[in-house]
């Protein structure tokens, strides 16, 4: 054995054991007066490898298992969790959830009401070619070493490369009768190279462009990491000597490696119904997309079509059932159709508040100890049905910048004003791609920005980006989510120069 599968020896419940715990939790909840209850029993197997230069910085394996019980008592929520999955503990924790709900009842101005959702007894396993947990640890480490070696040979002064792997196993049981087992896997590569110019005290970094995915190890094997590492070192060196950008309004062509995050922040988050209802007002924020805008707001140009799904291959939000037990296959929906805002993302108990019938499958809890809240499905830009290449997008640009990869990102709590950086910036002059620029960030306002989009790539240019760590909720939860994108052209966007001198 050459990996941490030894952890598998730790006790694991079979389905009969899980069903027994479900009966215990749901039985206690019912006897104590809950109108609804569910149990989420989860197990997360993780691995993390990090190599700095030619040295292994970390190799670790983890196994986190536990459960939570959520109850609705006279319209008030309560939940509790524990790492100890025994019948007695499940009963104690269920009673604690009831106690929490009871204590919170004096604050329940309006009762929560849950719509009926179909009941399922099912098992769903993410299709995958190569299980990353079956690949020997030394093989994964050797791959990371080779990546850094390529970067250092190509002129990087420093290089960091890491792989994180997660297997998420969830068992869901609701008082309505659903019993669902699910397994999925995430692979998350992360790389960075740094080059130094000692004389000036300046340095430049170039992050890797490989996205995290809901995939097996086959995704890692299919990506040319060493090729990219070498290229990254050269490009970082080029960055040091690149021309500083002149602040101005530019036409931007955003590569999908950059645009996916802009979609996440300026389309994904604003169209979350819990934000529109004010439930995130104290933390993640509200949204400018208020319910009166449903079916009316011209969010973007007519080229803009945004779809939401939890079924896309490789998607980090892809799963068979959401954490309310709602089936996701067949629940795909458009968020923006021909530029018009047409649908919110919803979890259970929300649809009726805007006159709709049922959740569209967007609940997620990030661990066994978390309460499921509305989280993003995969939210993606639909490619141009007409043929359009990256060069076609450049062709019509006189004074522009082409931006590749993600830099810094920031957006306000109602999702109007944003600022994004990138990894690589290239001048576009009179339809042709020119030399590299540096210190670029673009600012915009969501609706104005998306309405300025007048060209998008076709399906051949599609790229599935994503983030493993989108934050929301209190206590804060981090969700994995993917975003498909094609390159797109935006007219007259404000660009800043971000260079500064700071110390005395």
């Amino acid at each position, binding site marked *: 054995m050459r990996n941490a599968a030894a952890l598998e020896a730790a006790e694991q419940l079979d389905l009969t054991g899980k069903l027994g715990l479900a009966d215990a939790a749901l039985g206690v909840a019912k006897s104590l007066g809950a109108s609804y209850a569910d149990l989420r029993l989860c197990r997360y197997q993780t691995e993390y490898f990090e190599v700095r230069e030619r040295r292994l910085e970390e190799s670790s394996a983890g196994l986190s298992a*536990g459960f939570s019980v959520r109850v609705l008592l006279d319209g008030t929520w309560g939940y509790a*969790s524990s790492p100890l999955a025994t019948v007695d503990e499940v009963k104690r924790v269920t009673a604690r959830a009831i106690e929490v709900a009871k204590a919170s009842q004096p604050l329940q101005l309006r009762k929560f009401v849950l719509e009926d959702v179909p009941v399922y007894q099912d098992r769903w396993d993410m299709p995958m070619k190569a299980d990353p947990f079956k690949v020997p640890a030394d093989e994964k480490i050797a791959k990371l070493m080779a990546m850094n070696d390529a970067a250092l040979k190509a002129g990087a002064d420093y290089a960091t490369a890491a792989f994180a792997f997660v297997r998420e196993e969830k068992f869901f049981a609701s008082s309505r009768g659903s019993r669902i087992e699910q397994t999925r896997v995430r692979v998350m590569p992360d790389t960075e190279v740094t080059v130094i110019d000692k004389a000036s005290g300046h340095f430049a970094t170039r992050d890797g462009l490989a996205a995290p995915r809901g995939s097996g190890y086959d995704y890692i094997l299919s990506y040319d990491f060493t090729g990219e590492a070498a290229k990254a070192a050269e490009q970082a060196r080029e960055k040091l000597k690149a021309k500083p950008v002149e602040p101005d309004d530019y036409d931007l062509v955003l590569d999908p490696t950059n645009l996916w995050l802009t979609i996440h922040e300026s389309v994904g988050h604003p169209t979350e119904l819990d934000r529109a209802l004010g439930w995130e007002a104290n933390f993640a924020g509200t949204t400018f997309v208020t319910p009166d805008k449903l079916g009316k707001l011209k969010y973007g140009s007519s080229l803009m079509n945004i779809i939401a799904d939890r079924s896309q291959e490789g998607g980090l939000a892809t799963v068979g059932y959401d954490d309310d037990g709602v089936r996701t296959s067949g629940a795909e929906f458009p968020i923006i159709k021909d530029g018009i805002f047409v649908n919110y993302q919803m979890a259970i108990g929300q649809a009726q508040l805007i006159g709709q019938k049922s959740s569209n499958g967007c609940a997620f809890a990030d661990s066994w100890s978390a309460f499921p809240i509305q989280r993003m499905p995969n939210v993606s830009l639909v490619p141009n049905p007409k043929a359009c290449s990256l060069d076609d997008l450049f062709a019509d640009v006189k004074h522009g910048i082409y931006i590749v990869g993600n830099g810094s990102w920031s957006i*306000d709590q109602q999702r109007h004003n944003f600022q994004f950086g990138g990894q690589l910036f290239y001048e576009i002059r009179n339809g042709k791609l020119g030399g590299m620029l540096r210190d670029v960030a673009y600012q915009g306002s969501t609706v104005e920005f998306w309405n300025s989009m007048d060209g998008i790539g076709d399906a051949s240019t599609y790229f599935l980006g994503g983030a493993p760590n989108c934050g929301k909720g209190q206590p804060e939860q981090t969700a994995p989510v993917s975003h498909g994108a094609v390159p797109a052209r935006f007219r007259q966007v404000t660009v800043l120069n971000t260079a500064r001198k700071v110390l005395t």
Partner: protein
Amino acid sequence: MILDEGDAQSLANKILGLSKADSCIVTISGDESRHIRFAQNMATTNGSPGDIEVSVESHFGKHSGAASGTDLGDDALVALVAASEMTARLAPENPEFMPPLGPQKYVEETGFSPATEVVTSAMLAAAVQPVLRQAQAKNLQASGFLEAGVSFSAFATSKGLFVYDRETEVLHTVTARTPDGTGAGWAGTTHYDFSKLDAAAMGSVAIDKAVRSQKPSRLAPGKYRVILEPSAVSDLIGILVAEEFDQRAADEGRNFATKEGGGSRLGDTVFGKNVTIYSDPNDPVAPGGIYSDDGLPAQKTMWIENGVLKNLQCSRYWAQKSKLQPVPGPTTLTMVGGTTSIADMIKQTKRGLLITRFWYIREVDPQTVLLTGLTRDGVFLIEDGAITKPVCNFRFNESPAAMLNKVVALGPSVRTYGEEGPGLPVAAPPLLVDEFTLSSVSDAV
């Protein structure tokens, strides 16, 4: 799940006893908490989560590997140790390997309060109730989060080190909004002692700000004299010191403290003389954990003293290589304050802005620690020594390293909390700062 010191030590010894490695480190951590979450003047998702984690790092020579788990059963512990040893055996030699520490001397933990340990959900609800009543009475919508909990951690090595740390924490944040969505106010803090929390008073601050911030005017972006409330200050200094004060990165030429021509600016006066920032695990206002990286004792550490860069975080390996003392990361942060109250700062200001807090801060340029982010929940214009009107939020593009050279006045340092900081207990003053760069206007309220 909370283990007391004796149980934690027994568990650590049991795991160390299973180890066949040359050396071994065991860490155990757990928590139990309760929270009430509310929005639109009512409870939303209320809970009582608990967690535990035990991890083992095994070493064979300079080969090391780690494994962690949540199962404390005997079989699971055997599997855990085996997994960490297998991981270590498969790992290439780490030339920077440092053997585990032996026994160390630690200060007494002062960030624990029995009053917080016994908090029930009913007590949390009772504390939140007046906030909701006040909001309803003023026709406002209150949202927030009140959490109280206990956490522990233990660190043990095969060289005889054992340290146990138990802390309590209360987090209270509240946002009030006007129903028309044109006004918003916020207040928030952390504390270790629930009995010191005045939730109703926090609610009043948020409510007052929501009322006063209604229907803001748009001002042109630009460089402004600003008064930053303690929450805003805590975010900026927290990111700077906890995340960017790095000796190795500076020596390697990839840090704000890198010197032209090589080396770091340690010992140089790089900030204004009125700036002093330190960490002290026994700080009376913001006590913190008693141990840090590798089990090194947390002790009073001066980061910036009267503008001089006094210390950068430094690992044991880098310290040995560079003939420096190791400096573990901070477990708490205090910026020394002054005597100018916010009211006095307003009086001293001909034209400027009062900023409540920040949101969504991200690093734009690691070379300069240039950060971008937004103001949130109350920005007010000051003209001729008085607040004249609420104004729209701004995006800022500013470096805390630059800001600490532009501090005009400081108020008293208080326990505070910012959503964007590194999550440490922080005491920070309000600051009057010149030429703070606000790069665009946001329509968000």
